[in-house]
């Protein structure tokens, strides 16, 4: 039972922390928000259907007592034959909602209070604010505006078609009268090709100037191997850029220059072995350079091997991430997929001595300049952990262990200064289609200094605290 309780504490760490504040009713909504974000957002949103239904106005649809019962154990309700429960279960593709038996009634009430407050709040909810300035504040105005845009789009479309078809008709009529087509398409196309080439090249440069700085390459890599990665990228960019410009210029310029004018005859020139040999060998040499360089980079990136690296396991499930730290022994406890369940979300073998001091968290904290070995494990389907700022990605495959080793080099604070964005945070995204809430399956990544990291890791609960001491003794 003790182990069971400890697991509850870990899985709902935030819950436990906030349970001391229950008496402060003014904080109910605020507390509900924290609880909601920690426990519910993987599957629910206020106004969007994710995996579970949208929760807007849920307090008006169902009684509070029913909701509490449902949240604590929905399957029990379905099995007991509650018609409402069965309906909800069926409407949502019979996906089973996680049971939250650890949440107290007060906590659930505070979550509901938060949902209620959000339901009554104006249209722009925090998570979507800022994405569309045009969205407006008032739901009615919003709808009107959208309908107008829809209508306008449709009308413009129809008008365009009508105008174009009329222009065709008139042009062909005039052509018939004059005995020759009005538009000399050979000439027009030639000119249009030149225009397309020039505007296209300007637009390409514009893209690099305007959107280039928005990419992850602008701030530079935040990991050790990232430097080599970025070099490789830049070499490829320069080489392909040169080829791109030369070939596109030749293509459209030839199209313009050699358009038929009725006077010339084409040159009969079926082949030239010297030239062909030349343009087979030159690309081959350029590619050899890229291949050799690429292979070196690839080998460096995949053959990190540092015995002192900190071992961390990333656990992916629909739809969220957990990090498991190996603790002071730097050994991760064994796991077994059969033990994955409500009480033991990660399926950790609690009888394994190495598991006693493991720490499970919802955020990934790493110490700057400290190598880490990330091991990946998935519960249900394939996920992929993408950390774009570190040039790190690895698939997370159920039943197939994968790993990636790297060393972060820039702390979150440093990156914020560098990018001049105080609100910046590193992220880990799911990058392999995994279901309805794939697009919001993320984890915050924090790169700490040594002191910050120690402080943070010490503030986390180890899995089996009372045994850790004994184990250390036993090992010695």
């Amino acid at each position, binding site marked *: 039972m003790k182990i069971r309780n400890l697991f509850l504490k870990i899985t709902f760490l935030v819950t436990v922390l906030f349970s001391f504040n229950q008496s402060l009713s003014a904080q109910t909504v605020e507390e509900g928000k924290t609880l909601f974000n920690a426990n519910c957002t993987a599957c629910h949103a206020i106004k969007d259907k994710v995996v579970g239904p949208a929760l807007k106005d849920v307090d008006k649809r169902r009684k509070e007592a029913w909701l509490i019962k449902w949240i604590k154990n929905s399957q029990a309700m379905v099995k007991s034959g509650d018609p409402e429960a069965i309906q909800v279960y069926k409407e949502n593709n019979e996906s089973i909602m996680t049971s939250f038996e650890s949440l107290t009634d007060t906590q659930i009430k505070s979550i509901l209070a938060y949902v209620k407050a959000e339901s009554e709040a104006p249209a722009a909810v925090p998570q979507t604010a800022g994405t569309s300035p045009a969205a407006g504040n008032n739901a009615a105005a919003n709808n009107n505006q959208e309908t107008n845009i829809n209508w306008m789009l449709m009308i413009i479309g129809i008008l365009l078609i009508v105008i174009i078809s009329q222009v065709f008709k008139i042009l062909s009529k005039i052509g018939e009268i004059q005995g020759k087509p009005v538009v000399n398409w050979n000439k027009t196309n030639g000119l249009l090709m030149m225009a397309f080439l020039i505007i296209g090249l300007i637009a390409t440069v514009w893209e690099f100037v305007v959107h280039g700085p928005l990419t992850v390459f602008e701030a530079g890599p935040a990991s050790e191997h990232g430097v080599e990665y970025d070099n490789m990228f830049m070499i490829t960019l320069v080489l392909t850029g040169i080829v791109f410009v030369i070939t596109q210029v030749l293509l459209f310029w030839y*199209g313009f220059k050699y358009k038929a004018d009725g006077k010339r005859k084409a040159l009969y020139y079926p082949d030239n072995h010297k030239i062909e040999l030349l343009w087979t060998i030159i690309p081959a040499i350029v590619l050899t350079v890229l291949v050799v360089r690429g292979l070196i980079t690839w080998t460096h990136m995949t053959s990190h091997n540092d015995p002192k690296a900190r071992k961390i396991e990333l656990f992916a499930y629909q739809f969220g991430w957990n990090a498991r730290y190996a603790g002071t022994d730097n050994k991760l406890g064994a796991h077994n997929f059969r033990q994955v369940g409500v009480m033991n979300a990660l399926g950790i073998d609690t009888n394994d001595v190495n598991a006693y001091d493991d720490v499970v968290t919802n955020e990934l904290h790493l110490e700057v300049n400290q190598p880490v070995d990330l091991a990946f494990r998935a519960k249900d389907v394939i996920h992929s952990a993408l950390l774009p700022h570190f040039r790190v990605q690895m698939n997370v495959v159920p039943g197939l262990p994968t790993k990636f080793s790297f060393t972060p080099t820039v702390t979150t604070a440093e990156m914020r200064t560098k990018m001049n964005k105080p609100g910046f945070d590193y992220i880990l995204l799911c990058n392999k*289609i995994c279901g309805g809430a794939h697009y919001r399956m993320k984890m915050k990544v924090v790169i700490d200094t040594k002191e910050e990291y120690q402080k943070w890791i010490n503030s986390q609960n180890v899995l089996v605290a009372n045994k850790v001491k004994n184990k250390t003794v036993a090992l010695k």
Partner: protein
Amino acid sequence: MSDHNIDNHHEEHEHHKDSFLSKYVFSMDHKMIARQFLITGIIMGTIGMLMSMIFRLQLAYPDMTFPFLEGIIGHWGKDGKLDPNFYLALITIHGTIMVFYVLTAGLSGTFSNLLIPLQVGARDMASPFMNMLSYWFFFASSCVLLFSLFVDGGPASAGWTVYPPLSALPKAIPGSGTGMTLWLVAMILFIASALLGGINYIATILNMRTKGMKMTRLPLTIWAFLVTAILGLLSFPVLLGGSLLLVFDRSFGTSFYLSEIVAEFAGGIERTGGSPILFQHLFWFLGHPEVYIILLPALGITSEVIATNARKPIFGYRAMIGSILAIGVLSFIVWGHHMFITGMNPFLGSVFMLGTLIIAVPSAVKTFNYLATLWQGNLKLTPAMMFAIGLVSFFISGGLTGIYLGNAALDINLHDTYFVVAHFHLVMGSAAIFGMMAGIYHWYPKLFGRMMNETAGHIHFWLTIISAYCVFFPMHFLGLAGVPRRYYANTAYDQFDVFVDMNQFITIAALLGGLAQLIFLVNFFYNIFKGKRSPQNPWDSNTLEWTAPVEHFHGNWIGEIPHVYRWAYDYSKPGAEQDFIPQNVPDEGQTDCMEEAVGLPAIGNHAASAEA
């Protein structure tokens, strides 16, 4: 098969009257089957494109509601809001339709059927009946796929690559129920169609060439179709096997692709011991050659269209054949570059990376040869020619980003981001569609005996190329910022807020591109019935199909099949009166056309030439 036999066969057909059913529906005439493939492909393409419009709206305006959606897609668009699960269904079916139904069957099916017998000088395919079956399997497959849109839980939603476990377990996503079963059924029917077609194409090209049509005199279109058919024949069965195993995993409780999945999640049976990565290997063993199954016919068509309209022989004919063959062979040893980050052995990754980047060499050769063909040409900028030039442009733009993605190291940060979306929509999507359009504009007179409106064709071209670049070029930058593909919305990430404008721009460009296709659709369908009658050889082309009469009948040529005396590219030959010399014009300097026979033997014709 000798000419004599074919003649008999042809006469038989002249004797019995074609009923409506045997002429338009269950036709065994390759030209009618080509039309059937094309029109089915265009209808599927329109559906696929409309799907992309819906999800582009969602990506640009994630906070807006579009009440009309509820009218189109029912409860999936409740209150005008697209359901995230249905978003995934849309991208899945969009991908499936575009890759298989439009760019494989619609492109290769149409033009292989139309051009192989006509350009090699045969009265029909080796087996007209199998050819008909090929179309009807394809038709049945299209129907099953479209039907799956209406089943409970929605159509397949695991992405067009349908990776298990997501596609194997109905609990994982609603679309993995009946919808996924139907997807697999559709795919199995499709593979049957592709195989029936492919065997026929190969047999016809190798065995039924007319007198004098040596392998080295074949137009490049036929070379491309030949290699395409071989690729299909070798790779599609692997997907068939892979799909069947997935059917077993889904329906019969096996675990080929499943490992460490608890019973509760897997339909009551614990699944362990399989490997999800195995499916990826089987899928991409087809999937990568599939890219070239799509692209090679488009490149073949482009070679023919560029040479004809530049009034110049294609530059480096033999190098072009060589590069088609090289691409064909290499395409079988590079599938692993789709799986660099599945945790595969880094050494294996190196091998796949090497193979992948080598493909850039034959691709570069093809590009340079196209440029050299344009050089000093006398370009007739018809719509077909414009689309062919557009293809070369996309082939360059999309091909170059392949050098990033084929590099295992760079792939780590780019895999599955919008960079990939931009890459393959340019090199495989836009390029192949442009090749298909070039083919349609060029061979429309052959297909329907009428001409398309040229002005409409040019407007269609310019609107399409501009919108395609506006849609796909900016996506590279989304990818470089780490925006993953297949995201319903980017609203969950503050750092992607800067791309709101770009996403709206892309959507508007996509809508415009969609409107431009309306011009094409009207031009295409209107002129089938009302177009100007086509002359026999509207583009002054050398190849054999233009020696056949404009009116279609089963057997292609009245009387004897023309003999071939020269290659297909005698354009602007010095000393000739006109700037083209069709392949069936005897070459005076050459007494026996069979003397310098090289390459693969033209079976049957050798006996005839020996007598001569």
